[in-house]
């Protein structure tokens, strides 16, 4: 098991109950859609995996290590095992494509020789060969998200988390990004993707966890039809 949630609840300081008694297991190599309407608790759930938020109750494990009981000093190591893809890309505008990806490796202390090799590798992987010296402002939305995905992959994470990665993209570009995420999953990375876009989830034939008002309302195994 890569991820385990046991009776996890989250109540924000303002009293909003974002998650209500969530229990769930995710295997290594799985592709999981986290689906539900806006406000269902999808972002809250994924934020707990990289410990941006702590649960109010319950336990969470990543690769059998408790995220809740983890010391503050161990959080960087946890996060290095997780790649995060954001809806708004979060690219640094004053850095080139190459520098944006290298940045993710520099800040965890990777040697420059290793960075050079790996950055070109992930740039090829996401199909941005030839764009390495472009600035984010010179790229289309889809290309920018590819940079975001490349950056998330740079440190070879166990788990890739994408929170509404297609939220700012048109439907054709969204399908292209989905194909890229499926490819990444196919070569061994576990992927969790939160989305409210039914039209992307339906044809994929992957496992779908449905959230509503902080509760799991359905957990459809891969291949089953989503309503």
């Amino acid at each position, binding site marked *: 098991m890569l991820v385990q949630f046991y009776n996890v609840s989250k109540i924000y300081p303002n009293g909003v109950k974002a998650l209500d008694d969530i229990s769930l297991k995710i295997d290594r190599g799985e592709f999981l859609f986290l689906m539900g309407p806006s406000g269902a608790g999808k972002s809250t759930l994924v934020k707990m995996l990289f410990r*941006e938020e702590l649960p109010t109750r319950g336990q969470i494990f990543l690769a059998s290590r408790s995220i809740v009981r983890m010391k503050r000093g161990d*959080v960087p190591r946890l*996060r*290095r095992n997780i790649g995060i893809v954001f809806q708004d890309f*979060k690219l*640094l505008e004053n850095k080139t494509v190459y520098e944006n990806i290298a940045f993710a490796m520099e*800040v*965890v202390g990777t040697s*420059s020789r290793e960075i050079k090799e790996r950055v070109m590798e992930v740039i090829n992987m996401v199909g941005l060969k030839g764009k390495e010296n472009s600035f984010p402002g010179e790229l289309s939305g889809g290309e920018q998200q590819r940079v975001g995905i490349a950056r998330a992959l740079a*440190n070879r994470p166990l788990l890739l988390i994408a929170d509404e990665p297609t939220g700012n993209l048109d439907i054709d570009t969204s399908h292209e990004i989905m194909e890229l995420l499926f490819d990444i999953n196919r070569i061994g990375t576990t992927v969790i993707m939160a989305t409210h876009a039914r039209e992307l989830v339906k044809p994929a034939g992957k496992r779908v966890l449905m959230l509503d008002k902080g509760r799991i309302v359905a957990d459809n195994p891969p291949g089953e039809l989503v309503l």
Partner: protein
Amino acid sequence: MRPGSIIYFLREAFKSLSRNRLLSIATISTVAISILILGFAVLLTINAGALMQDLESDVEIVAFLDKKLTKSQITDIKQDLTAVSGVKSVKFVSREQALAKMQEKYGGNEYNLKETLGKNPLPHSYEIKADDPHNVPQIAGQVSKIDGIYKVNYGQGVVERLFKVTRWVRIVSIVFIVLLVFAAVFLIATTIRLAIFARRKEIYLMKLIGSTDWFIRWPFFIEGVFMGAVGGLIAILILAAGYSSLIGHMDTMFFIPLVTSPKILRNIYIGLLVCGATLGVLGTWVSLNRFLDV
């Protein structure tokens, strides 16, 4: 820390300095002004301290001797005085010397004291200095108990008031300097916070990618030390130029003895430079921690 990281930290620090040039200049100016005010206060305090020490060291005990004492009795008394604990020096002043001093002080060349008075009314005396002027009243009490001494004078009343004043001046100036340091940290932290705020998204991203707090801090600290030291240096140059021209003018204008020892001044200036660099780091520390809490 790997050597590769050090190069990375230095590069990041100076990239950020030149990228946020306006904020860097603002921070350096803030440090310079803070250190200038602080340095001014320190020089003032040091000089006030020297002046007070000067006044205090002038405090001495005069022990007047009985009129009918033999030479050997007078010598014995000197030994008794030297034996009192806390006494630094004992100096004999004959009645003739005392009169001559008085003539010099009050008579001048206008009229002759001895002729006016008819005869010398003054007794022999001992002038006693204490290791620590603050112990003078207590030593005076012990001296007055010695046989053959009929009166002890040390400026009773005035001396106690002098010590009270100097103590308060010292306390007030230390409190003032401490307050200044706090104000400077706050001011500098506020300026640095602007620079860090401009990069909050980058810091947040670094945290989510798995950067350690120290890895994020180092470039900011290097930047803080650099800006603090440059600001301090500017302040010291202004301060040193101002003070040395003041020394030049004061010599000819006033009797106030200014501290001119190059060693003391050098230590003050080095201290202020270290203070500037420390303020830079402290300001960075205070501002940065909030953004690392992700």
